[in-house]
């Protein structure tokens, strides 16, 4: 115990008794998804190195060009290189996705733990969460961005606020079911303090579902960012994001569909990979599923 636990024991701590559902096989799907996502992440990290052109440089002579040796995917309405823009767009999208997932899980975990364990706080917190859930997230995001200006952080906040109630509900439901477990009651009988029980016995149970939830939030954040940018309420139009590229491409849709097709494809592939990995994680970690499979 004192020594560093071996990796298997670490997994044990994180997920409890991990048992693969009977008959579960690692299909090709998750592997391909991981590979695709890996490539997108690499592209985002090394975007400046692999972009042949500056994604911002306009060239009035090269407007709406088709694919060529210099412009791999052609150019947009301002003569900017589409390929360089799509690659650079991955950076913002991934940053927003990961940022929103991280922030909402962190805040949601704290509120959820408190709400699940303290009855008095619970009633108030859950009413507030119900109300936040009632506000359609796209509209809230639109309003927040409209008021706070189009920055990456206001987009992250706008995405985070509607996600928090979902995380809170998840954490709370885990806490509510686990606090009835005899081992938690035994801990009470052993004189463990409430914060200790909350953190050492209850919190680890939320990690596995939270990891799954975080992947879904990440995917939906990337999607929401694209929608916001597409509606003109997202990140500043000067920054190339997948949503912005598509928003600008809208007008020329019938003329040059590739302005929507390529960023749309990248966006969809990225979200698809994240969702697939999330589903895989869920198959492995969801205790209800485990129960069902025996």
């Amino acid at each position, binding site marked *: 115990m004192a020594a560093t636990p071996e990796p298997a024991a670490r997994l044990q701590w994180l997920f409890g008794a991990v048992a693969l559902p009977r*008959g579960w096989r690692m299909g090709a799907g998750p592997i391909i998804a991981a590979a695709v996502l890996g490539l997108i992440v690499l592209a985002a990290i090394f975007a400046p190195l692999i972009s042949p052109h500056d994604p911002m440089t306009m060239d009035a002579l090269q407007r709406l060009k088709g694919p060529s040796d210099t412009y791999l995917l052609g150019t947009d309405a301002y003569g900017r290189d589409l390929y360089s823009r799509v690659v650079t767009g991955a950076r913002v999208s991934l940053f927003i996705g990961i940022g929103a997932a991280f922030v909402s899980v962190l805040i949601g975990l704290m509120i959820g733990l408190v709400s699940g364990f303290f009855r008095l706080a619970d009633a108030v917190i859950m*009413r*507030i969460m*119900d*109300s*936040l*859930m*009632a*506000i*359609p*997230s*796209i*509209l*809230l995001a*639109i*309003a*927040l961005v*409209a*008021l*706070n*200006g189009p920055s990456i952080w206001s987009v992250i906040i706008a995405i985070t606020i509607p996600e928090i109630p979902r995380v809170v509900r998840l954490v709370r439901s885990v806490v509510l079911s686990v606090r009835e477990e005899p081992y938690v009651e035994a801990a009470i009988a052993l004189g463990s303090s409430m914060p200790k029980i909350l953190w050492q016995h209850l919190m680890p149970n939320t990690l596995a579902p939270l990891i799954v939830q975080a992947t879904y939030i990440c*995917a*939906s954040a990337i*999607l929401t960012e*694209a*929608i916001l940018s*597409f*509606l*003109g*309420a997202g990140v500043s139009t000067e920054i190339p994001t997948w949503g912005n590229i*598509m928003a600008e491409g809208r007008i020329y*849709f*019938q003329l040059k*569909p590739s302005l*929507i097709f390529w960023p*749309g494809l990248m*966006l*969809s592939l990225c*979200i*698809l990979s994240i*969702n*697939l990995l999330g*589903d895989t994680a869920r198959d492995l970690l969801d205790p*209800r599923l485990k*129960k*069902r499979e025996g």
Partner: protein
Amino acid sequence: MLGYIIRRILAVIPVMVIVAVFVFLLLRLTPGDPAAIIAGDMATPAQLERIRTSLGLNDPLHVQFITWVGLLLQGELGTSLISNTPVTSMIGQRIWPTFNIAVLTIVLSVLIAVPMGVLAAWRHRTWADYAVMAFSVLGFSIPVFVIGYIFIQVFSLELRWLPVQGYKAPSEGLWAFLSRAILPCLTLATIYVALIARMTRASMLEVLGEDYIRTARAKGVAEQIVLFRHALRNAAVPIMTIIGTGFALLIGGVVVTESVFNIPGIGRLTVDAVLARDYPVIQAMILLTSALYVFINLVIDLSYTFFDPRIRY
């Protein structure tokens, strides 16, 4: 049963109050001068003052709130900063296209998604299950406007089966309405179907593992009766819940879809308001859709009593 209904209805009140407070504070607690943000960088002091007065930003916060709620309760949602017309009448003019398309979408989605989910659960771990799951994960992953453009490209531009964009009311002829509404509806339905099918599958899988399903099979009951009479009704509550919470997704989708298909509904109204920074319109839309969401989920909660006799007591 009556107790349950009254409790559910009363529970709506604090939720709506908190929504109202939240929406109210959204503008007032924004760092910086909200009037300046709304007016944009080029505004003159006179314009700023006009915005301040019309939003009542010069009064102390609690006075503002009381006035605001007072007007709200009279159905007064404010006046557009751009067109100077009352927001209520603006929404009134544009609500029908949205309403028609939303209702059509919900009906369509439920009719497609529930059988899909049942099939996937029944044929768990077969190609049918994998196909439904693949569709559902795709539905979650492709942005709604991309789906819209793909549909336009394929059905309108390539195959030329349907008009590209626009809207006609059902009163102008059923085909005129349907031919223009079907693509936006399918676009909107994609993510909704994905959501409901997924939940139906999960819920059915759980129920199919229950003891009473084994009992039904031990009675020799035919498989379709096991599925639809015994399992689906027990699986209904989570499915109904997701239909309700998914409504929020639908609203987001409406905003985008109406832009893509050029439909003069309240979604377009919102987008135009965002571009023009017409804050009263945005605010009214948030309040309206939240109230609608709460109402729909209330109806769904009450419908549980129909599916599950245990809730009646």
